């Protein structure tokens, strides 16, 4: 990808699809890597509840910390997808070289599908 990308216009809040065009989630935050005097580079896209809450002010950030640290000694990072896995940034989606079935971003979806939806005959 050598053309210019406007991170806020074109990437942030966009829907993310896996390599088979299944919905993974949205780009909820971007993580830039600052390396001394070198220009920053885009390192990760963050997705999920904690990433979203961190954008919603003081209460949101507290909520994000709580989500990350629930039942753990060291708080967990929000779900991250490395920028290197991005294959395409289109007008409607960002396509990423992962699989929705194994991605951590859809863990809750799979849990709900197995434990509750299946029991209700869905």
């Amino acid at each position, binding site marked *: 990808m050598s053309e210019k990308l406007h991170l*806020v*216009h074109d990437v*942030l*809040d*966009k*829907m*993310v699809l896996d390599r088979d065009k*299944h*919905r*993974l*989630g*949205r780009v*909820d935050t971007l993580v830039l890597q600052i390396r001394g005097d070198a220009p920053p580079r885009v390192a990760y896209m963050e*997705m999920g509840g904690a990433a*979203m809450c961190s*954008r*919603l*002010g003081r209460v949101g950030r507290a909520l994000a910390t709580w989500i990350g640290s629930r039942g753990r000694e060291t708080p967990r990072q929000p779900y991250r997808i490395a920028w290197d896995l991005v294959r395409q940034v289109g*007008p*409607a989606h960002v396509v990423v070289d992962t699989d*929705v079935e194994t991605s951590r971003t*859809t863990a*809750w*979806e*799979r849990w*709900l*599908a197995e434990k*509750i*939806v*299946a029991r*209700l*005959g*869905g």
Partner: protein
Amino acid sequence: MKKVMELALGLITSIGGFLEIGSITTAAQGGAAYTYQLGWSIALGTLCLALLLEMSGRLAAVSKHTIVDAIRERFGLPFSVIPAAVVVLVSFLVMASELGGVSLALKFATGIDIRWWALPVALVAWLLLWKGTFGLVEQGVSLLGLVTLVFLVGAIKLHPDWGAVAHGLVPTLPKKEPTHYWFIAVSILGASISPYLFIFYSSGAIEDKWDSSYLSMNRITAGVGTAFGGALALMVLVGAGAVLAPRGIQVDSVEQVALLLTHVLGRWGFVLVVLSLAIGSFGAVAEIALASAYIVAEELGWNWSEDIAPHDAARFSMVYTVLVVLSSIPILLGLDPLKLTMLSMALTAASLPVAVVPFLLLMNDERYVQEHTNGWFGNSAVTLIVLMSCVLAVVSIPLEIFGG
């Protein structure tokens, strides 16, 4: 040929799916209290709805984004959660009142109290959503909703003063109780311009895989279909104006609405009005539950579609499941469905600005609608709708208290 069939279905859906407890009771209240004088508020609400629906459909067909998608991407998460949360909350109250509407209709038919009906109705609505497809939810129920044409038949048979009805389409000031007049006008506008309607419409356009070739069909469905639906609401007002107003009957309960066409259509008038209330409100329950699930899933980036099995969109399916069940609680607690309806209509009117303001920017953004941006007419219309909704936002709650 396929497009013609789709268009026909789309029109029928708009007509049969228009009336529900909110539009029926607010129109009946208007007709009973002020005869035909409030016809203009139905016309205005219908026109605004038609314009907003056309824009939602155009946005979806051209940009392949639903409204919620577009608002989240264009304005970012911190702004977009506000309209999303507000619309979900207000729509929840509307859904509870619609469930109340179905329960009331069943009470009128059987004599059994509404509290016994709340959960069974919620269960049936849930089953429809769980097992059904988008087409079944949207078109199936609306086809049954054609029973609401009884209001048109009844109004014609009543031989009202059509001149006075036409006169009522022009706004006039009331001769008595102005606060009550404006309260009903605002409620009618809230009943007509419900945000869940255009969110449902734009998500439906994506479900049906609309593209730019559907733009004319979108215009016809949104314009003509909604106009016919609004005309049916006007017929409810005409019926109430011709039957209830001369007798001095105010609409303070839905029982009074059920009596509307019993004089002119006999037993069929009673049966079909009760059926209209039941089917119209039931369709609204399913639609609102689905619209709310669309809002949450689209805002948060979850997988969504009514056309796939629930286990393939588990979080989306659980949202409407939980909401449908929770919406039975107000009725189970014994809250009066009519009072709940009036409150939810007032709150809908109050929440309109947050839902409508984003249209102003989105419909002019070429990144979304490409060359199909709003012309001067569309922009003027949206600006006026935004101004009107700001006024409604300020006056609706005080009017509910003073004039309700």
